[in-house]
């Protein structure tokens, strides 16, 4: 009997494990820099090289950031947690074990809300734990094909954030990852860089027939360093597993590497042979104790999280969902927005204007230069001043745009720049009338066509007058005079 079964007969079950590098100055167990770059093995010491005799000295800030993250995600912060050794051999793992947390992690439970197709869904977390990153194996460093080991990254602190298998599609997985990333960015604990691997995710994917009560066998997917790759990898894997089940073949529990060039996942046999990590409590580190004082301090450090912020922008400031979404997104515009709006005196009207400038002109400039708001020469207060000049009629829209670009690139005082660059708006009726008359006199054919009603050439005449006024004409006055001279048209 043959029966065609669509993929829609299957339920996809996904859980994500995210590894996020913490933005500390130094590594988790030694005083070496966590900074990127530098020659191989230039940020190392006896401890992160795993030399004989060394011991790990836990970085207090790592514990703080773990607690801060756990609080933001609604986790239960554990008063006592324990580091363990995860034993395996690999050249990028200097000690032959990774110091991680196993049975008693620092955070349990919690979760975060995502919105997919307009529907809100809560994704539960299993746990968050602290651990050290491995170094990097560099391939083909020598002519004979040998590999090289660079331990600069070894010992960089990581949070591993593990979700429950609550995700039901590749889209949900992507949304979850985006939402989590936004939270970590807002907390300032991670830089959210998927491409460079400071924010990376593994996906546990399985399929089961709809209505089934038991999860299918899962595969662990690795190497998805963008949201797009995550989606592609999960979708490919679902198709692969459904095809296996349909043809009566077993799904093997294994680690699979996503190959972006082929859009496929493939088995990593090398990782399979010994999945016996022989965890045991790290004897070199006493249990981590988190007291109430630390929790209170991290609670006080909690910023407004992206979803709450977007809701506030929509609710009390009347921004559209889309604009609110862009502002709280990963461009880091929200803090700038809040500061500029506050400098401008607040209110829904001003909010709309500040938002427009940030989402429009300033986002364009930020994209072009690759600079985050922190690195702009334009400060929120200066943007508020520009908007003040615009509202007061000191500059027109075009002038404001020039002003903003100039301030973005070089900084400075807006009022002073208006004077120095002659950007002040021309509102003097006499001057504008002279320009209008000259334009109309120079374009008799266009005037004729406009008046005969064949074509509305108002835009053309405005452009010509503005050009004559070097872009500085007051648009209201220009329009009014043109209307008067050209007649009711």
């Amino acid at each position: 009997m043959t029966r065609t079964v669509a993929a829609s007969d299957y339920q996809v079950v996904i859980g994500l494990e995210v590894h996020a590098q913490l933005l500390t100055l130094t590594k988790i167990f030694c005083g070496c820099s966590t900074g990127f770059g530098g020659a191989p093995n230039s940020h190392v010491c006896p401890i992160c090289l795993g030399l004989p005799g060394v011991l790990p000295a836990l970085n207090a800030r790592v514990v703080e950031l773990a607690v801060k993250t756990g609080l933001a995600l609604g986790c239960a912060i554990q008063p006592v947690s324990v580091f363990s050794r995860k034993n395996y051999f690999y050249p990028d793992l200097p000690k032959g074990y990774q110091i991680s947390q196993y049975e008693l992690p620092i955070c349990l439970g919690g979760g975060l809300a995502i919105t997919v197709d307009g529907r809100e869904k809560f994704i539960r977390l299993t746990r968050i734990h602290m651990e050290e990153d491995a170094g990097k194996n560099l391939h083909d460093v020598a002519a004979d094909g040998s590999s090289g080991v660079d331990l600069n990254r070894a010992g960089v602190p990581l949070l591993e954030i593990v979700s429950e298998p609550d995700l039901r599609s590749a889209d949900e997985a992507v949304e979850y990852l985006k939402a989590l990333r936004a939270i970590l960015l807002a907390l300032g604990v991670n830089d959210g860089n998927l491409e460079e691997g400071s924010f990376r995710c593994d996906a546990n994917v399985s399929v089961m027939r709809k209505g089934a009560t038991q999860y299918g066998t899962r595969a662990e997917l690795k190497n998805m360093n963008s949201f797009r790759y995550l989606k592609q990898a999960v979708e490919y894997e679902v198709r692969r597993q459904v095809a296996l089940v349909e043809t009566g073949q077993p799904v093997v529990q294994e680690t699979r590497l996503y190959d972006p060039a082929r859009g496929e996942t493939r088995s990593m046999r090398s990782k399979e042979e010994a999945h016996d990590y022989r965890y045991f409590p790290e004897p070199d580190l006493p249990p981590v104790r988190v007291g109430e004082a630390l929790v209170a301090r991290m609670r006080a450090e909690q910023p407004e999280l992206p979803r709450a912020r977007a809701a506030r922008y929509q609710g009390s400031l009347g921004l559209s969902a889309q604009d609110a979404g862009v502002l709280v997104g990963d461009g880091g515009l929200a803090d700038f927005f809040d500061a500029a709006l506050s400098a401008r005196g607040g209110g829904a009207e001003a909010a709309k204007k500040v938002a427009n400038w940030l989402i429009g002109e300033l986002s364009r400039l930020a994209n072009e230069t690759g600079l985050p708001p922190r690195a702009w020469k334009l400060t929120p207060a200066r943007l508020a001043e520009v908007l003040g000049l615009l509202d007061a009629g000191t500059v027109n829209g075009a002038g404001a745009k020039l002003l903003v670009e100039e301030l973005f690139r070089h900084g400075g005082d807006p009022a002073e720049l208006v004077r120095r660059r002659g950007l002040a708006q021309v509102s003097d009726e006499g001057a504008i009338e002279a320009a209008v008359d000259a334009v109309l006199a120079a374009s008799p054919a266009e005037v004729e066509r406009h008046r005969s009603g064949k074509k509305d050439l108002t835009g053309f005449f405005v452009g010509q007058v503005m050009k004559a006024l070097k872009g500085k004409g007051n648009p209201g006055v220009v329009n009014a005079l043109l209307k008067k001279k050209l007649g009711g048209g």
Partner: protein
Amino acid sequence: MALTLDEVRRVAALARLKLSEEEERLFAEQLSAILDHVRELETLDVTGVPPMTHALAEGEAVALRPDALVPGLSPEEALGNAPAREGTCFKVPRIIE
């Protein structure tokens, strides 16, 4: 004998020890004798007893390290004991993933 040759080989592979056949036989025998001795732990009732996972007493204060930079080793010092190097990398045979 408590430990079979196959188990000895499985454990040796986990521990990345390449044992000679003679060593495999010797270890199977010696480790079995030790495991037999260790079996006496099974006669103890440890129900409800917490494991002693750390030796420093619970009440002792633990000072974590402040997040402050400490000078490390130069790449040359770091590689000073390296059996093989390429540039400032530790050199190893080709890694296949």
